[in-house]
Structures are given as C-alpha cells and as structure tokens.
C-alpha cells in the first residue's frame, strides 16, 4: 500500500503543477493588464509622462512584468509556494490578509454543505431503497429531480423571493450579525457564524443532496440483492445490523469517492451563492478582482481553489482505500 500511496502522491503533485500552469495561462489571457488600467488612471490625474513612466517601470520591475513569460511564471509560483500572494494592485491590500479569512469561510460553508447533504441524503437514500416504490420513495425522487434542476443560484433567488413575499423579510443572507462583522474572532463570533451557516449550507448542499440520494438508493438496491446479504440474514442478524454493518458499508463506496468529485461543484456553488447572498467569501473577491483586471489575484484564487480540490480528491481516495479492503489502490 505504501507504494501505491507514493504513486498517487506523485500524481497529485504533477496535477497541482499542471493546475498552476493552466491558472497562469488564464492570467495571461485578457488583453490588458492592471498596469494599462493604472496608466490611464494616472494620465487622468495629469501627471507628467516621465512621472507615469517611472511609476510604471517601478511596478513592472517589482512584479517582473518586464521579464519573459516563464520568468514571470516562476516568480509567481515561487511566491505562491512560499505562501506569499503579494499585494493586490487593484484592492491595494495584502492578498494574504484578503484571502485567508474568505478562503476559510468558503471552505467552512462548502464543508458544512457537504455534511448537511450527507446527513440528509444517507438516511433518505437508505429509506428509499428499503421502501422502493412507496409514496415516500416517489416523493424523494421528485425532490431529487428538483434538486438537480434547481442549482444554487436559482434556489437562492427563490428563497429570497419567498422571504420577501411570504415572510416580509427586509434582509436575507450574510454570515454574521451586524455587531460581529468587523469584530475579531472570538467564541461568540464563531457561535454567531454557526447560527447563520444553515442557509448557505442548505443552498449550496441542496443539489448535491439530490444527487447523493440517487446514488445511495441505487447502491443500496444493488447491494441488498447480493448473496452476502442473504447470508447475513440467514445467520439471524437483526435487520438493523444487516443494513448498517453489511449493506451500507459496501454501498457507501461510490458515495465516498463521489465526495471528492462533488467538491468542485460545492465550491463553485459556494462562489455563486455567495454572490447572490452577498457573503464575505471567495466568490465576490474573485469577481471584484476580475472586474478590476487584477489577474494575479484572480489567478491565485483559482489555483488555490483548484489546489484545495486536488488535495481533497487525494484524501478521498485514501479514505476510500481505508474504507474498502477490495480497493487498496490497485490501479487508478
């Protein structure tokens, strides 16, 4: 198993490297860069062209924009690896500070959404499989289809719509009560976050809940027909034990490997939900960076998000091997 883990780790590092290259390519795509925007701004301020030129040259040298492309890439990568994301030219702030809290909140929401969707999907899926073709099963199937058809953005809009028209709310969303928004982190603030977390977690997790219910149901139906389940029943085990210890453990397999795959969906769902609900997470920051043509910040955000996903997938694979003795990472 050690060899296999090593092999998988090497693969992960290569993937991370490719992700960073792709991220860098995206940075280079837009026609202008931030400096051209800054140049026009400085010209509006009626600075002499010599002043503008010296300011721009200084910035270019600082960010290596006067160097060939591969040198720019290496500089960007090495600072990314050192955890130094530099200074946002557009937002005039330290990117590390900007990112870290928002990144944590993004991950917290995505993770909460995942927990939420699992906590809901597992029992429902198992129940649907055991009571196949019952009215409850049909109900969950319909709900599942709705979940697939209603992505986070629309769900968020509909909830806002309901909140306004039915409950006469004047605000919705946010992650903190007003008094905690600017406050430093404290146990009380964490508690406040937990109180506000359910709505975004519900919205982000809804569509993946629907998908997971379908997977769990199909898997349980498959597994319940296997001979070893009959054996377990014949041994006189209680139905509870047959379900939880024998059937569910095998049926969970694709659910766990699906968790790694569902992460990109959760994170991109989180970005768009955050934009609709106005949450202080990565999504709005990415959008602002793009509107300001601050491509370095945008690229860093993209690479960090994808990097988190690659690592998440790696962990999901390890969990899977640990959970299911049949897999043990033979060949990917």
């Amino acid at each position, binding site marked *: 198993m050690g060899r296999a883990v090593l092999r998988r780790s090497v*693969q992960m590092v290569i993937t991370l490297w490719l992700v960073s290259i792709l991220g860098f390519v995206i940075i280079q795509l837009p026609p202008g860069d931030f400096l051209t925007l800054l140049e026009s701004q400085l010209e509006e301020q009626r600075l002499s062209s010599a002043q503008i030129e010296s300011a721009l040259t200084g910035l270019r040298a600082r960010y290596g924009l006067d160097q060939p492309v591969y040198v720019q890439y290496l500089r960007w990568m090495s600072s990314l690896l050192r955890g130094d994301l530099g200074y946002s030219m557009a937002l005039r702030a330290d990117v590390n500070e900007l990112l870290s809290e928002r990144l944590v909140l993004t991950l917290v929401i995505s993770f909460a959404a995942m927990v939420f969707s699992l906590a809901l999907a597992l029992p429902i899926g198992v129940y649907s499989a055991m009571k196949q*073709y019952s009215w409850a099963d049909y109900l969950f199937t319909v709900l599942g289809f709705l979940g697939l058809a209603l992505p986070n953005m629309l769900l968020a809009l*509909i909830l806002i719509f309901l909140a*306004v028209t039915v409950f006469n709310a004047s605000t919705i969303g946010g992650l903190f009560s007003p008094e905690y928004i600017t406050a430093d982190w404290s146990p009380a603030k964490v508690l406040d976050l937990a109180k506000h977390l359910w709505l975004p977690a519900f919205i982000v997790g809804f569509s993946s809940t629907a998908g997971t219910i379908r997977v769990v149901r199909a898997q349980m139906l498959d597994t319940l027909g296997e001979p070893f389940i009959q054996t377990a029943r014949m041994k006189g085990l209680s139905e509870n034990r047959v379900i939880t210890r024998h059937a569910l453990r095998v049926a969970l397999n694709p659910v766990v490997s699906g968790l790694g795959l569902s992460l*990109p969906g959760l994170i991109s769902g989180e970005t768009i939900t955050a*934009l609709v609900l106005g949450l202080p997470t990565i999504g709005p920051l990415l959008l602002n960076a793009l509107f300001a043509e601050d491509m370095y910040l945008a690229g860093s955000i993209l690479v960090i998000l994808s990097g988190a996903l690659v690592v998440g997938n790696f962990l999901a694979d390890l969990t899977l091997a640990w959970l299911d003795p049949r897999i043990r990472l033979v060949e990917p």
Partner: protein
Amino acid sequence: MAHPEPANPREEAAHVPSGKTEAAAYSYWGLIWWRYKRNRIGVVGGIALLLLYALVLPAELTAPYPLNERHTGFLDVPPQFIRFISPDGRFSPRPFVYGLKQERDPETLRRLYVPNEEEIYPLRLFVPGEESWTFLGLTWDRHLLGVESPGKLFLLGTDTQGRDLFSQLLYGGRISLTVGLVGVALSLVLGGIVGLISGYLGGIVDDLIQRGIEVMISFPSIPLWIALSAAIPAEWNSIQVFFGITVILSSIGWGGLARVVRGMTLSLQNEDYVKAGRINGATTWWIVTRHLFPGTLSYMIVAATLAIPGMILGETALSFLGLGIQPPMVSWGVLLKQAQDITVLAHKPWLIAPVFFLTVAVLSFNFLGDGLRDAADPFSGQ
C-alpha cells in the same frame, strides 16, 4: 419490510422487448426509440422541450412585442390576468384582458397599475404588429398572440424600462437554449475525438490525455468560467460574445464526454467484431469510423443531453453576474440580473419568472437524458 422487493415486472418488460420476433424487427436505433417511448417521464421531458423550442425559436412570431420594445407609460406593470368572465358576470368564450389604469398608492405614493374594467380587449391570434419582422427570410407583421391597439398584453408584466417580460423571456430563451445546444455540440466534437484517440491509442498518449482531463475537471467550473469570460474583449459584437461564451462553457464539458467515449472505446476494442476487423487487415481509420464511432454514438448523445442543462445554467450564471451575454442581446440570465436585488423583488415579484422557465427546461433535459440513457443501455435501470 425485510427483503428487497423483486424488480417491478412491468418495468422490466419496458426495458427488454418481449419475444424474439418483435425485437428482431427493430434496427439498433429503432430499438432505442422503442424503449424510449415506453419511458413516460422521458417522453414528457422530450415533448416539453419540443414545445419550449417551438415557442422560443421563432420568437419574432410567438412574442407579442419585438425585442427590447419599450412601452412608455407602462413601467413596472404587474402581470395581466387572462379573463373569461366579463364584468357583468357573463362567460365570454373568447378570453380577454382589461385595459390598464394608473393609480397611486395612497400611502407610499408609488405608481400602481390596476385593471380598468371599462376597457375590454379580447385576445386575438395573428395580430398585426407595428413593424414587420424578418426571421429566416420570412417577413411578416403579425404576432401569434396579442390584443388590438391601444390595448396592451403583458402576460408576465413589464420591467422598469417598460419592456414586456414575456416577450423578453421568449427572445432570451432562444439565446439561453441555443447556448446549451451549441456548447454541447462543441464539446461533443472535441470530447468525441479526444476520447476516441485516447481509448484507441492507449499507452502514453492515453495517460497524458487522462491527466490533462483530470486537471481540467479539478477546476471548480463557475470560478473558471468567470475567469475565462474576463478574457472576452469588450469590443466584440453580440454574436462574437455568444460564441465566446459557448466556447468557454464547453471548455470543461468536453472532458467528461471524452472520458465516457474513452471508456466505451476501451471496452469495444475487445469485442469480437473489432478484433475480426483488425485481423482482416482493416485500417485504424476504418475501425475507428466504422466500428468504434457508431458504437459510442448513442452514449455520446445521452451524455450530451445530460450535459446541456449544466451549460444553460452556466450561461445563466455568467450573464447573471454581468460577464456573459450583454444587452441589447437578452438571455434568461440577463433577465434575472434585474431580479437579484431583494428590494426589487419585494416590489416586482414577477421578475422572478425566468427561474420557472429555466427550471422547466433543465428538468426536461434531465428527464429526456435519463429516458435516453435507459433506452440506449438495456442493462441500465435494473
């Protein structure tokens, strides 16, 4: 209930044609069509989509008013009800709408529109519009549904600029629903070719392609789409932007399709008929085009159908954020952009209408795709 129920016999019968003689009468595609027709939900999805496309594609004809026509003096009008009972309580076989009367809210002094029961405008088919339109070389001045001037027909109300939401929805639907089709066609071509190459050649090429696809897939789609759409030059015209958006949307989608095709190709390669072809000296091109491609086609179509909703929603998300389709072109995302403010929704709840059209479209594509999948694979759903 302790034991799993045996599979529903009726459902099983739906997947496998009963009796050899009957099955033998169908071709491969005939068999798929036969199995698809038995899937009720799948058929409903298909019919709903046909209706939807029939409604939005000739938007010039089906929409009561031209694109972006502003009705001055009719701003933020709520949806009008289509009525059958006239004010004196009699049933009128021809549906009609009341005229609109402007009032002010006594408390907030906001402008309000209320039905004016003294003006009755019956709904008419093929009503002449103010200007003639041209669609696919056809020039006409009629609109499918409407009322005669000076009456107005706002089935879903109007927006702040006095544009009829229903008309805008139909025009927007044309963009939104074709973005999905064009995007999927692009990813189908790309994914099909790459998947066939990857599966047929195998070895290091396969390895490289698979790692590449893994990288593509590991990007979260919406942030990647957002970042890519920043690269669309501002000076592009609407058509160029439209194609730019579809290319961006298919930038991720093709990876999944390529994987499906690769898997199919790998398993088909060990089929006897492919081996027989190879032994008989068939060229690679022959095997790929005559044996492997037709074998993977049905799966590609299914995968494509299931990929369309993601693309439609991707376009909606981008346009909603102001990064996708740009006015004066409209799409459902562009229309929803007006509805993202909570205060706007409080006063003009009808602006949420595109959400329902979107949901119907996405749901129908899912139903259709599921039905086709079950039809294409005799062992699925069992």
